[in-house]
């Protein structure tokens, strides 16, 4: 009952925050803009041309928008109770700290997944109106983006129990940047472009800190691009297939089951840390 009440009213509060509404509005407008762009900009005559532009646009803009929304939610969902002092009145009521933490995580999770669902539906509609295709890879792109954003969101929530929310978010942004670099390096290790001791270090870091879940969207974009560019033959590329294989080796592939289990374990662990942080918190 207590956790439900916390979740319910946190959702109501989040729904009333202008920042979140603005972020979602901007992302929806940009997604629509991506759908219109190939018809307005010159040089996108074929369906594949348009698809590439749309997929690149969606992967850049929606990926960032989902992350920004997750940051915005993570920054306010607990910190504003702490910052305003509202948490004093809330925790003096007969609710356990576990109930409070569960309510906060549930509401934050719900709203980020909801936002992600809106982006997914909008982006799929845009692709569908432009000829369709790539639906499954787009779905997994959004699923992976959502999962990554959720992990970062819980990290922000943990840090905001102790720190100012802007500082907490800045730390997680830096962490996210490192995560991206590790993902790229790990892809190179898997393709034997990096070997030896450094490869060992990269693999250790990859399996020690929570790493990003990935889809095959970037690989799909690379494959489609090559197909478009070599439709009339590729005089500059005597062996396009070999070139594609080399390009794909640099791009991380979709995460496997092991990565998903690993993500889940990390998510549960971070939620447990958040609970312990709130349990120890004296207000």
């Amino acid at each position, binding site marked *: *009952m*207590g956790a*439900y*009440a*916390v979740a*319910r*009213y*946190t959702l*109501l*509060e989040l729904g*009333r*925050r202008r920042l979140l509404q603005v972020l979602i509005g901007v992302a929806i407008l940009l997604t629509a803009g991506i759908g219109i762009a190939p018809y307005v900009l010159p040089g996108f005559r074929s369906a594949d041309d348009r698809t590439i532009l749309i997929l690149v646009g969606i992967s850049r803009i929606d990926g960032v928008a989902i992350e920004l929304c997750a940051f915005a939610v993570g920054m306010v969902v607990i910190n*504003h*109770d702490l910052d*305003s*002092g*509202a948490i*004093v*009145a*809330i*925790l*003096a*009521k*007969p*609710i*356990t700290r576990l109930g409070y933490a569960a309510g906060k995580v549930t509401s934050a999770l719900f709203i980020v997944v909801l936002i992600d669902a809106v982006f997914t539906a909008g982006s799929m509609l845009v692709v569908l109106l432009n000829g369709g295709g790539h639906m499954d890879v787009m779905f997994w792109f959004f699923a992976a983006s959502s999962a990554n954003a959720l992990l970062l969101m819980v990290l922000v929530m943990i840090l905001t129990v102790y720190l100012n929310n802007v500082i907490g978010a800045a730390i997680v942004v830096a962490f996210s940047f490192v995560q991206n670099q590790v993902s790229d390096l790990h892809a190179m290790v898997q393709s034997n472009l990096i070997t030896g001791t450094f490869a060992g270090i990269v693999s250790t870091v990859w399996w020690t800190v929570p790493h990003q879940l990935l889809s095959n969207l970037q690989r799909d974009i690379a494959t489609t691009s090559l197909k478009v560019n070599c439709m009339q033959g590729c005089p500059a590329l005597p062996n396009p297939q070999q070139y594609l294989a080399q390009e794909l080796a640099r791009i991380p592939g979709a995460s496997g089951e092991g990565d998903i289990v690993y993500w889940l374990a990390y998510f549960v662990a971070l939620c447990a840390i958040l609970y312990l942080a709130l349990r120890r918190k*004296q*207000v």
Partner: protein
Amino acid sequence: MVEVKELRKRYRSHDPLAVDGLSLALERGQAFGLLGPNGAGKSTVVKSIVGLTRPTSGEVRLFGSTPGDAAARARVGFAPEDPDFPKFLRADEVMDYFGRLQGLASEERRQRGAEALEWAGLAGERRQVRRFSKGMKQRLALAQAILGRPALLIFDEPTADLDPVGRRDVRDMISQLKAAGTTILLNSHLLSEVERVCDTVAILVRGRVRAVGPVQELVPEGKTLEQVFMELVEATSAAPGLPGFMKEKS
């Protein structure tokens, strides 16, 4: 109802003790006043009783249990110092939220919430909490505190930062609750407030109880509570004189 034994609280290892070996007991039907200057440790005692801070040592019992026990806290109504509530909610939503936390059924929440807001002068208020004045937040704090029909009501500096009219109104509301037989723990540095409401008083200075007992026993004939309080406080902290530069004639 409440038993505090040898309570000590130090927030950080280098900080002085905020509360230093405090013991007190609160009986049913009492109106107990915690008096003390700013920084005496009054709010720390109150927060320890409602489980918001952990004692460094000592013990706090609340209705025979610990403050961490949600069932024990269900019998307490708490109006915190400088109260605030989720900023984007309206008063009736705060009441529903807190009613749910209190475990009240839907009909009870609706009825008690409306009555409590009416009593606190906030009926029909449609603005979000972030638009509330301090006085309105204080009224909302009182309204949410009584929501669960508590056996014990704790008020932490309920009239701090209020204008004279707000002070009078809040004092009247607390007096009504006392008249209704609710046990009250009032934490304040305003002597008149405590004198008016409480039958038993503890005076805290620097985390220690300097005097405790019924007001009549604590205040000798021919003296006022303010005089007793000042004597106890000044015995431990002399007021510094003006800085030198302020004494120079311009």
